[in-house]
């Protein structure tokens, strides 16, 4: 029997995940909480085998950061990142944090039960890519990695100078990337672009 900790700030989503876990014979829900930052404390108290971790949790706490902290102190605990956000960087960040698997609530081909089973048997289950989203006239997979970095800076509300300093490029290069982004999407301003990117959850400010 595997002890499970569920972290999700939305009660409905959490209850649905609880139902899925309860439906499986080998799993026992020990705690179900809404704040990722507190997950480590619950892992210290009980023997937890599996954590189902949402990314955007209560009080703006980042589930991937919390997962990384848990993995540092309790490397034996399996962690599955569970999210409905198609955010571009989540998969990469989850891998870097040492999370075992990744499951999209709305986009996944596999059920959560299957992902849990594979993860507990030692497999690492990750989607091949993030869901493709329409941003204006372009698909999200048309953006280069550098353009995504630029978009992230725009969405965070940084000035051109701050973004260029952060990325280590000149302002002219930055403007060239922005021009390309606007050209691909067909938007007339960075404001329109940033709003659509956030609205479609391709990039989430603060995560």
């Amino acid at each position, binding site marked *: 029997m595997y002890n499970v900790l569920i972290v999700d700030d*939305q009660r409905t989503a959490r209850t649905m995940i609880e139902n899925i876990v309860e439906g499986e014979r080998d799993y026992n829900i020990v705690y179900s909480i809404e704040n990722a*930052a507190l997950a*480590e*404390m619950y892992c210290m*108290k009980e023997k937890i085998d599996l954590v189902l971790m949402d990314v955007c949790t209560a009080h703006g706490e980042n589930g991937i950061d919390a997962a990384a902290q848990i993995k540092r102190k309790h490397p034996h605990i399996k962690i599955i990142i569970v999210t409905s956000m198609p955010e571009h960087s989540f998969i990469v960040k989850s891998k870097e944090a040492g999370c075992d698997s990744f499951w999209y609530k709305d986009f996944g081909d596999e059920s959560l039960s299957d992902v849990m089973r594979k993860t507990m048997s030692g497999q690492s289950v990750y989607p091949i890519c993030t869901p493709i989203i329409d941003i204006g006239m372009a698909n999200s997979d048309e953006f280069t990695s550098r353009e995504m970095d630029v978009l992230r800076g725009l969405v965070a509300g940084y000035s051109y100078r701050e973004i260029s300093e952060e990325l280590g490029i000149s302002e002219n290069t930055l403007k060239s990337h922005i021009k390309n982004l606007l050209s691909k999407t067909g938007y007339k301003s960075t404001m329109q672009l940033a709003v659509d990117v956030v609205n479609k959850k391709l990039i989430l*400010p603060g995560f």
Partner: protein
Amino acid sequence: MKVYLSYSEGVRALVISLILLFLVLSIVILIMDIIKRRKFSIIAADFILIVIMFILPFELELSDRLVRAGKNLKGFSLFVSELPLWVYVVAFCITVVYFAIRLSALRRAKRVQITYDSVREATDNLPAGICYAHSTGRLMFANRAMYKFYDSLCGEFLNDAKPLWDCGENIMLDNGDVWTVKSEVISFGDLNIIETIAFDTTKLYNMRDELYERNRALKLQQERLSKLLTNIGIIQREEEVLLSKVRIHDHFGRCVIATRRFLVSDGNDISQEEIIEMWDTAVKLLEASMYDKEISDNDAVSDLLEAADVLGCKIIIDGDVPEKQELSYLIVSLIRVAVTNAYEYAKATELYANISRDDRYVICEISDNGQIKADFIREGGGLLGIRKSIERCGGEFVVKCDDGVKLMAKIPVEDGVI
């Protein structure tokens, strides 16, 4: 072969005149070379040429007069008078070439040499004003632009540089032009010379104003964007809740269809237990959806206290957790990291957080009843992260290890709001 004295008087007079002409030219060039302090070899060459030019006509004229007086020539006079004319022609050509080369060199030197006039001409063409003066203010040098600027500034001719030093760095003239004036002392041994440079920064000033306005507009735009993104975040959460409710609705739909199947088939297609389980799940989901609402900041503290209780380390807070979100987040994060460490490393069962404030800072001091006393704490992920967050907002974070571990955070309060 014809010798010098065998030529007519006219030819001899021409030879003498040419030699005298080149003698004068040689003297002029020698004087210029001495003034310009040219190389010794050049001056020596000029000097030898003058000596030759001086002796030659003298000897030729002397020999001419001696011959006409019917006397015999001897020595050097005989030698020069017996030289064939072509020797003089060749010597003349060589001298002409020499003078041509020297004159060309002199012209080239004039072009590249720095003189007072060339300095003045160059500085007068500069858009910036330049002035050199003694420390008493007595003028040594100033260019045209500086005279013009001084006239616009003081309404008088530039004689004393002191007003330039006292007029401030950026000056707006009556005509609206903006000038920047900078002075610097240059020392040559005991002599102090003050260099003053004034340059027209009107365009820069206007552009700075324009840039300031643009930055202000950009900042407003960023603030609008930030607010918009926050609103979008809220809308997204609401969308997620809505999506969950759609799922609940679907689940209810499946329950109704299953119940109908159960009633129609009289329990043959689907069992009563399955129906009850489905309805049980539906009720749970419905109940959960009622709690999906925005969580207040205080809940972060309640959640932390509850988690600490579960962990077995009670948190006792003395003072009020700030209401401002950023401050509250930092304090709660600090207490969370502290309780995690106190439980893990010191087996503490109680953690004391004292929160106080003054006009400028919120101060949070944390201690615990841990059994293990440490002399030194190596700051890992949690404490290091907190330290960075506190220091990033201009605060101070101290870890003391005397008589148990104590943490102290001093976080600045913006606008006195906590």
